[in-house]
């Protein structure tokens, strides 16, 4: 085709890309959410007339405000506890000179690989009324309430430790950015170590702390797995319950769920707007030309020094106990797991591999055998099915999010400072403003019928739900992918593209051979982190609840409920422990690949290759 023709291959591709982008944006972001919003206003009253106030009146008269109040209460409490724990673990490992800080840091970061539904069920296993830790604590403190781990307390306790790893990760970067010369200057001017901490160090951390506080508040507000599994009436579990309910069971459940989603979205939008406004004002920038690395501060007062060490190690025990216990219990037989007491003389791999028959005595004294009732996580068809489904769906969604964002960012970068770039970016950031539950709920309701927009298909029907889950996974991961990949693109030297162009490379060749390899580590990191988050994702899986879309997290949840039911799935808890260990290994490998291997540049990789070659030659007895 003539290159000057107005409809060459490039133009057709651009038009196709534009149409596809608009189609997907409208179909999987705008229309479902608009439908949810509309469902509030199209509610009909008892006389059959449309009355949006009917649902509001019902909302106010019933127990609905309680869910909102509970969510707000959890969010506020979580902000306090996460900030207290998060700040203290960063100070203990980065600012103060605490013995064994490296080990402590590793302990505090365990919730990075042990999170979500696995963490919640693990905490439940250890801390509920007959849990090992509660039993042990009640023996030490007989006055203690054995039911302490339930409802609000349980959710707050679990979420506090689940959220602090990420909190600490960001805060650690901020504290490492402090110029030590400013600390020395303050000390030189006569400030005590604690005065320096509160007057010099903490103020520079405030912007990061503010961002983290807002994000923690939103996390608390949108909490799903912990309230659902630990029994706390907050907004998200209620939305999921209502989504599965029908008008025959209760009054306008869909409209009420929609109203709750919109309330959640309103809170999120307001908070993110505040955060955005605050971030635009800018952070404190170090004006130092020669920044000095922070030197850890000794606590000179012996009392406070001991107190800090005790506090640090208590936190370490809290973080590490579930991890260690879950690993140990994953190698225990079902009687030990059921009684929640470790049996050090009997270890097994049955929770991981193989099957066993279960023999039991009936009430009439007959010995019965359930064939294959005891099975390992990799021998149990449900568990394997869940792992396989989650693996495939997470991989597809994570890859899809990366591909969409790389193409979009390439376009945004090319047309930066233009309106079209701004619009494209805003479309991709749109899901960031909406709570995940609103997107999933909207999908579930909007696509649970034959929809003209998707060629008359019902996407919630049978296996189609998997496509819907993949779309939800992809859409919710777009904002994170955009922020990370855009940063990588913008960090790239403009002159590289010019150099390639000067040497005769076409735009496609330049993209594939020059730009893509540079941003690839970031893209792979985004892929890996998104995959990691989605692989054990609970909220979306729970919202879509379908026997055709049973994700790994839902299987883990089921393991909690189905244990030992009439001799079936007798070692479900053991399998759950093994599943948690499996998740920890997968997450650990992914984080190592992202932050360990992936962070190396070409020089470091070449050096590593050289080292391997040398070792290999030495192994083969070849002298260098």
């Amino acid at each position: 085709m003539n290159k000057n023709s107005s409809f060459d291959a490039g133009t057709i591709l651009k038009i196709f890309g534009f149409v596809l982008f608009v189609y997907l944006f409208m179909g999987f972001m705008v229309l479902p959410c608009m439908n949810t919003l509309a469902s509030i206003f199209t509610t009909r009253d008892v006389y059959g007339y449309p009355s949006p106030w009917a649902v509001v009146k019902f909302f106010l008269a019933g127990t609905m405000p309680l869910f909102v109040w509970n969510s707000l209460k959890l969010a506020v409490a979580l902000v306090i506890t996460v900030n207290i724990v998060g700040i203290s673990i960063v100070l203990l490992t980065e600012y103060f000179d605490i013995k064994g800080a490296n080990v402590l840091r590793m302990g505090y970061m365990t919730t990075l690989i042990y999170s979500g539904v696995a963490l919640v069920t693990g905490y439940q296993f250890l801390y509920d009324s007959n849990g090992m830790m509660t039993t042990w604590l009640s023996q030490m403190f007989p006055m203690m309430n054995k039911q302490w781990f339930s409802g609000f307390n349980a959710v707050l306790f679990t979420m506090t430790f689940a959220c602090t790893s990420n909190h600490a990760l960001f805060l650690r970067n901020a504290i490492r950015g402090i110029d030590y010369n400013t600390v020395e200057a303050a000390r030189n001017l006569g400030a005590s170590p604690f005065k320096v901490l509160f007057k010099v160090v903490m103020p520079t951390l405030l912007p990061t702390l503010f961002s983290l506080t807002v994000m923690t508040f939103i996390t608390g507000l949108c909490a799903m797995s912990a309230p659902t599994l630990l029994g706390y009436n907050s907004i998200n579990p209620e939305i999921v319950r209502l989504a599965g309910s029908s008008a025959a069971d209760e009054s306008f459940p869909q409209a009420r769920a929609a109203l709750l989603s919109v309330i959640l979205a309103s809170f999120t939008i307001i908070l993110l707007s505040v955060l955005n406004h605050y971030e635009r004002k800018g952070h404190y920038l170090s004006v130092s030309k020669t920044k000095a690395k922070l030197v850890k501060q000794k606590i000179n007062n012996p009392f406070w020094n001991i107190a800090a060490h005790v506090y640090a190690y208590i936190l370490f025990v809290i973080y590490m106990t579930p991890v260690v216990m879950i690993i140990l219990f994953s190698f225990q037989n079902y009687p030990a797991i059921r009684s929640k007491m470790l049996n050090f003389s009997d270890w097994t791999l049955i929770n991981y591999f193989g099957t066993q028959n279960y023999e039991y005595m009936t009430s009439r004294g007959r010995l019965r055998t359930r064939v294959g009732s005891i099975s390992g996580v990799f021998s149990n068809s449900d568990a394997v099915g869940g792992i396989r489904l989650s693996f495939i769906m997470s991989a597809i969604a994570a890859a899809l999010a990366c591909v969409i964002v790389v193409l979009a960012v390439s376009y945004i970068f090319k047309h930066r400072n233009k309106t079209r770039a701004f619009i494209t970016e805003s479309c991709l950031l749109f899901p960031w403003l909406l709570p995940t539950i609103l997107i999933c709920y909207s999908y579930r309701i909007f696509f649970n019928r034959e929809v003209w927009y998707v060629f008359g298909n019902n996407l919630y029907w049978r296996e189609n739900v998997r496509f819907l889950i993949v779309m939800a996974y992809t859409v919710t991961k777009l904002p994170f992918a955009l922020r990370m990949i855009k940063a990588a693109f913008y960090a790239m030297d403009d002159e590289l593209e010019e150099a390639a162009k000067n040497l005769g490379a076409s735009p496609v060749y330049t993209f594939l051979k020059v730009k893509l390899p540079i941003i690839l580590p970031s893209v792979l990191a985004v892929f890996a982190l998104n995959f990691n988050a989605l692989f054990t994702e609970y909220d979306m899986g729970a919202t879509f609840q379908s026997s055709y879309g049973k994700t790994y997290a839902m299987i883990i949840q089921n393991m909690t409920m189905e244990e030992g039911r009439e001799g079936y799935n007798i070692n479900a808890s053991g399998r759950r422990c093994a599943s948690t260990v499996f998740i920890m290994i997968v997450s650990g490998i992914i984080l190592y690949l992202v932050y360990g291997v992936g962070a190396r540049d070409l020089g470091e990789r070449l050096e590593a290759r050289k080292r391997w070659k040398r070792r290999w030659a030495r192994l083969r007895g070849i002298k260098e």
Partner: protein
Amino acid sequence: MIKLTNIFVKFGEFEALKDINVHVKEGQFFTFLGPSGCGKTTTLRTITGFIEPTSGTVLMKGEDITHVPIEKRNIGIVFQSYALFPTMTVYDNIAFGLKIKKLGKAEIDSKVRDIAAKVDLSAEQLEKAVSQLSGGQQQRVAIARALVTGPAIICMDEPLSNLDAKLRVQLRNELKKMQREFGITTIYVTHDQEEALTLSDCIAVFNKGVIEQIGNPNEIYNHSKTEFVANFIGDINKLEPVLLSAAGLNLPEDQNHFIRLERIHVDRENSSGNLEGVIESQEYYGLYIKYYIRVGGQILKVIEKNDGVRIYNPGESVNVIINPADIMSYKKE
């Protein structure tokens, strides 16, 4: 070799280049010199093809290349940041342009190794990542990459600006040596007048989108055509009317008069000096000493060779000798 005729470049309402006319001869080391935002890089980018001029023509070897795409101009570029591809080894960086030209593997290999040897890069360094090289080695890779495809000319956009002072001087010398060895026409952009004077066969001094003067380093320094050039190249004293009358110099009042620091002489014994002054302060540079002398109501900066004998101290009275032939005069604007 390269001829720019009546080049105008506009960015919206802003006129970046106004009637630029330059002729770069074969084998010449030609420098575009000027302060930030004066249009020197824009001129270079017009030559390389990154910017299309609003009007005017760019000729290369007599052929109009004004609208020829970048990749077809046969111009090598060394970028300010070197723009070395970080995900490729040194070898792959140099071979990049040859691979695009679809040359055979053996030919690519021989060309890469040949140019690497010429710019003093070892076979071991070729296998390294660019991040494993020093600043000087990276510069050599950038030059090798630009030269390996056999360009007609090579353009360099402030390639030394990111380096520390010592390395700059060292690489400056290497750059000149390499240019002489390859005999390739080079267009060089810099804001550093010392760099321009030491490297160039010819210099074009830019200011606010126009060329103030074109000439060899001696012409530019000693016979600056405009007040801007005189001020921009080297340090200079502006002679105030009070001082001129004290010195008994009768110069036109509608002009500004200047003299370079090294053209003023100071003597303790010599009574034939036309001015008397007092040393205000001194700056010791080792090779020379810079004096600030109060003369006739103004401070004059003077450079004297450090011979270890004639060193004046602050407060000391000296005779200042100004030769009228060394005074440069420019019409007041």
